């Protein structure tokens, strides 16, 4: 079964890191993975998009055309890629203010930036909160995700684990 | 044939294709003397050339290993070769086109890295193999095939450029200073780093014919001689004088490029082994 995940936002939010952890987690569980990343010229700011495809077989097309899960970290990203998504849309209400009202059951608000600021006095951990929520929404193996995260992130393991846990236990993510 | 040519050169490749009275052969003869006096053997020296008169006429004359790079790239090739064969002496014989024009960036960066090669820039003050156009070392005002109204561009001195770039040995001579050239090339070869020797020599067929108005080999070499001395045969001053001699000698004062890389590799390897041990 081919699973497509699309994550998009601004540069510096940790979009690529999220994809990397997600991908490594799938590889550790014996899946095949591709991750296309596209970004603007600048290192910080600009747009970033990660297209992740997970499959038990070799992934032919790495392009996400019908995302099973779409994570929107910015309003432009949400507007641009909404039509590519056929499944759940996780979005950060602080960054995506206007959402479509035609499919409320597909939308999962995750206040990652706000929670990160409140809990860690730093918005850097928003991506891990979002990843925790994503793990729950997509019904992925939480333990494997924790291990992959520890393998990928070099520092601040305690905060990152706490953030992942925070996202994973969010009421909004329980579906 | 002279004894050194018999000892070091390829009999099938000499006489070279050089025009009569061309200074390229003289300078190569002096290089052989320097090599011989240092006791180097054929296999100790790798001979690199570029394109143009100097490249064409000297390529494959050396009896040991030769490379004739594309125009201006002899130093770029030498950069890679030096990594693979660090213990050899490199004689990179290039013209003013190679060194001062098309390949200047390689020259500058080889000097910056202190690449362990000796560059002999044989300068005939123009692009003579293509018919005598001006080069960055053509003296101002002189007529060439592409400066029919006189050279209007200011020239530049490659010695200053490589010195500023960090060369550890820089010298200039002309084709009438045999003893000095041999001595300088010997010193250059003893420097484990970047050495640059700028040698001016006459071209009879183009520079001589157009800039100096004669194809007479004697008059053209005499012209070089006068501008080396600063004085004409009749005692009057020349329009300019080349300052010859050693211009900068910091031989063996900083590590050679390939050595730097090998030292780094040794450090990395030691660190890795230290980490592997519990």
């Amino acid at each position, binding site marked *: 079964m081919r699973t497509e995940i699309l994550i998009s936002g601004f540069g510096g939010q940790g979009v690529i890191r999220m*994809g*990397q952890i997600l*991908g*490594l987690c799938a*590889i550790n569980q014996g*899946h095949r*993975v*591709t*991750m*296309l*990343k*596209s*970004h*603007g*010229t600048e290192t910080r700011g600009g747009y970033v998009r990660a297209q992740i495809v997970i499959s038990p077989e*070799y*992934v*032919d*097309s*790495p*392009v996400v*055309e019908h995302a099973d899960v779409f994570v929107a970290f910015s309003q432009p990203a949400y507007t641009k890629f909404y039509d590519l998504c056929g499944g759940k849309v996780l979005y950060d209400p602080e960054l995506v203010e206007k959402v479509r009202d035609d499919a409320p059951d597909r939308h999962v608000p995750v206040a990652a930036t706000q929670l990160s600021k409140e809990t860690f006095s730093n918005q850097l951990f928003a991506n891990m909160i979002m990843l925790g929520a994503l793990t729950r929404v997509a019904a992925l193996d939480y333990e494997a995700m924790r291990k992959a995260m520890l393998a990928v992130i070099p520092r601040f393991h305690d905060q990152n684990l706490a953030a992942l846990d925070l996202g994973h236990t969010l009421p909004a993510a329980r579906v | 044939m002279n004894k050194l040519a018999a000892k070091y050169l390829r009999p099938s*490749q000499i006489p070279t294709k050089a025009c009569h009275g061309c200074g390229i052969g003289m300078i190569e003869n002096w290089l052989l003397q320097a090599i011989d006096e240092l006791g180097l053997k*054929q*296999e100790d020296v*790798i001979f690199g*050339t570029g*394109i143009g008169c100097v490249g064409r006429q000297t*390529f*494959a004359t050396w*009896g*040991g*290993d*030769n*490379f*004739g*790079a*594309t125009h201006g*790239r002899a130093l*770029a*090739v*030498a*950069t*890679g*070769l*030096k*990594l*693979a*064969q660090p213990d*050899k002496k490199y004689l990179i014989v290039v013209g003013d086109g190679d060194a001062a024009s098309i390949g200047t*960036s*390689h020259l*500058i*960066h080889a000097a910056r890295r202190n690449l362990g090669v000796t560059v002999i820039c044989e300068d005939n003050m123009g692009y003579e193999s293509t018919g005598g156009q001006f080069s960055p070392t053509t003296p101002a005002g002189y007529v060439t095939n592409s400066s029919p109204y006189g050279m209007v561009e200011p020239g530049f001195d490659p010695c200053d450029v490589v010195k500023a770039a960090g060369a550890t040995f820089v010298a200039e001579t002309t084709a009438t200073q045999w003893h000095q050239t041999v001595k300088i090339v010997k010193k250059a070869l003893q420097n484990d780093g970047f050495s640059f020797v700028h040698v001016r020599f006459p071209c009879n067929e183009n520079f001589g014919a157009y800039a100096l108005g004669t194809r007479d080999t004697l008059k053209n070499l005499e012209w070089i001689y006068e501008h080396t001395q600063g004085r004409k045969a009749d005692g009057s001053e020349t329009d300019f004088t080349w300052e010859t001699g050693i211009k900068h000698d910091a031989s063996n004062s900083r590590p050679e490029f*390939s050595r730097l*890389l090998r030292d*780094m*590799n040794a450090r*990395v*390897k030691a660190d890795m082994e230290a980490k592997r041990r519990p």
Partner: protein
Amino acid sequence: MITVKAGGLVAPWIEWEKRCTDGRRLLEAGTYALTEGAIAAGCRVFAGYPITPATDIAEYMSKRLPQVGGYYVQCEDELAGMHACAGASLGGLKAMTATSGPGYTLMHDAYGWSITNEIPLVVVDAMRVGPISGITGAPGQGEFYIARYASHGGNFETIVVSPSSVQEAFWLTIDAFNLSERFRTPVTILTDQVISDMWEDLFIPADYDGLDFVRPRKHNLMMPFYPVGDASIDVPPNVIGHGTGVCVSAYTHTEEGYDIEEMEAQWAQTYRLVNKIRHHKDELARYETFGLDDAEVVAVAYGANARTVKTGVLEARRRGVKAGFVRLVTLWPFLDELFERDCRFVVCELNYDGQLVREVQRAAPHKKDVHFMGKSAELHTVSEVAAGLDGVARSNRLPELPYIWTEVR
């Protein structure tokens, strides 16, 4: 001549994969795979100039080479980069450089020099969309012909290969080094921004020293240095530094390497440069096919683009179109045999001018049956490919699709 097999991948690494059981599975980028492939193949010199999207190869190399006793040189420009690689290869070390289109054209000076002096080395060209600098972060396939005619003057054949996955990039780099050693010639790995930047699961063998399929470096220490007038391969390359009197130069050369201006010498040298590759074309064929047995319409692609095209072919088959698929891994010498069949072709490539399609038109029996689906800066989508195959199968015409270019003249 090459006999086209019924389907699947034809490449030496199918066998290699079976031999390598021990190793690690990683999530890594194509640039990483290209670097590790080179290290595994014994590459010990990298000289180049950073350029998106090949910069990461330079960065990985600067980290990895000192660990294995190799040398990383960041040159002043691409001209110097490839010349330094050629110099290192002449000195007896395997060398590689990596660049993108703007740097690749600068390297042609050294490329021709390496071809004429039969110097083995590997060049990675990570194509991005052009012309000139284009968009640094978008894929293109505009160097198909440039890679073939990678030097001026003609009278040579080149070897160009193209991976379409991160794993394949790893194996193909080893393969490219082997080919460059066998054929005494530079080999281009024509990859693109997608494969370079894409992260994918990658198997890396545990121990490179035991890889028996890596061709070791051998040296020719015998005069004459060039078997001119002869098309033999597996002749070890010349090496400078052993006092054997090697001559390499940019000129037409005799078998001793001396420059010469005689037509007979020119004919003998170019006979070798052309035929050492042409006469051994069957050893260079790497490609993937499926569905050719009953195909009425065949999609043709290479590189990253081939992945969405393949999915598109599968989708078309699901819709009942008798579609087949050809993915070229070896781009040059061009595998004409794959296209000598009576069916329609849809050539998908990432440019609007049409490059691969012209070769297919030349090789296919009927030019009017070859169709072009060009797209610029972005991979074809699966639905575009499926719609295109469907249209060609029905009416021998491509449907009009947004952003798809169909004109080749």
